[in-house]
């Protein structure tokens, strides 16, 4: 439920995947079929020669270099920046404020702003969950979801504990928190079995 750009991930992976597929298919075709090799040389040799001509005609005065290489370098810098931006956008979206509302004179007689940190909900839920003996561990984090904070509760029950009772109990805790805070935020309760569950599709338990 973090802010990973999933659409962008799919589109960029498809794009790079298609490029890799095309390059790989071309290499195999050139290696395996003489006709494909002739076609490739007929197309690529003039292209390489025109590239060399371009490099010569755009040569910088007084140096051996060419504008072409500077243009290539700039394009590569932009590509690297784009890749770093892409990676930096994975898993972002942690929030530190649960709610921030402006008060006014009509509200309770005082103008100002009320902000409740995300740690309030996180620590309240975590402390309440720590008392339970049927849970191995619990994590509470707050994410920003389209500008709105949402709380994620990850609990790891012991083997054999019924997940729906855990879900109902945690939901009751969340409702108690709603009463205390006076407002509702979207809540995700994620019941898991540790890191192992991420790598297998069908789960086998004796």
């Amino acid at each position, binding site marked *: *439920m973090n802010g*990973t750009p*999933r659409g962008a*991930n*799919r*589109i*960029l*992976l*498809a794009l*790079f*995947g*298609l490029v*890799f*597929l095309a*390059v*790989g*298919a*071309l*290499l195999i*075709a*050139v*290696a*395996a079929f003489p006709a494909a*090799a002739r076609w*490739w*040389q007929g197309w690529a*040799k003039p292209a*390489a020669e025109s590239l*060399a001509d371009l490099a010569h005609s755009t040569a910088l005065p007084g140096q051996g*270099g*060419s504008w072409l*290489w500077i243009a290539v*370098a700039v394009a*590569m810098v932009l*590509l*690297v920046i784009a*890749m770093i931006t892409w*990676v930096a956008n994975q898993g972002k979206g942690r929030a530190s404020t649960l709610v921030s509302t402006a008060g006014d004179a009509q509200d309770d007689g005082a103008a100002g702003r009320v902000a409740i940190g995300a740690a309030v909900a996180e620590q309240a839920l975590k402390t309440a969950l720590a008392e339970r003996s049927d849970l191995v561990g619990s994590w509470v984090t707050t994410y920003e*979801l389209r500008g709105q904070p949402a709380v994620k*509760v990850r609990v790891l029950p012991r*083997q054999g*504990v*019924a*997940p*729906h009772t855990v*879900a109902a109990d945690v*939901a009751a805790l969340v409702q108690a928190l709603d009463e205390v805070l006076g407002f509702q935020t*979207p*809540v*995700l*309760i*994620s*019941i*898991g079995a540790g890191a192992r*569950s*991420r790598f297998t599709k*069908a*789960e*086998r338990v*004796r």
Partner: protein
Amino acid sequence: MTASMERILRREMHSSRAPLAGLAATVVALLAIYILLEAVLRAVGQPPWLVDPLAAATNLASLPAGVSPLLLGLIGAVVMLVGLVFVLNAILPGRRARHAIANPRAAVVVDDEVVASALARRARLAAGVTREQVMVVVSRNLVQVNVRPTSGIPLDGDTVRTAVEDELDAMELLPRPVVRVALAPMGVVGV
């Protein structure tokens, strides 16, 4: 509220592909950095580090020449395989081994391993066997319960099925899987 809940549930039930995206970005960035290095060396008139860009272009253009066809085909196959992995990851739904649980207040997802563990416990109590004699496999639409009875003690598959169905009904999983119980023909001795 419900719209954001549905969005949360949809995102939690599917994989985000973040690790593969990071891998793809790293590969592309490393390639770009290498090309950047050679281009800058060429631009300032220094000798190339590994290969001159123009020489590389000429070599590529005359490709089947200069490389053994086996090696070239092998490289092509590896590159194609990497591309196939990327494309399949982009296209396939990428469902995680999870189910949703209906809840009025919160979006609830549960890993299939937890469901399997709870159902295995219930099946074990209904059948009166030990932990080692029950194995439960939970997938998206099917719960497969495998029980090996204790030798000499008859075991009714319907009892196990009813117990597991009861537990599954109480869980209110979305989507709700079908239960299939299989009793092993061979009993277990010495438990």
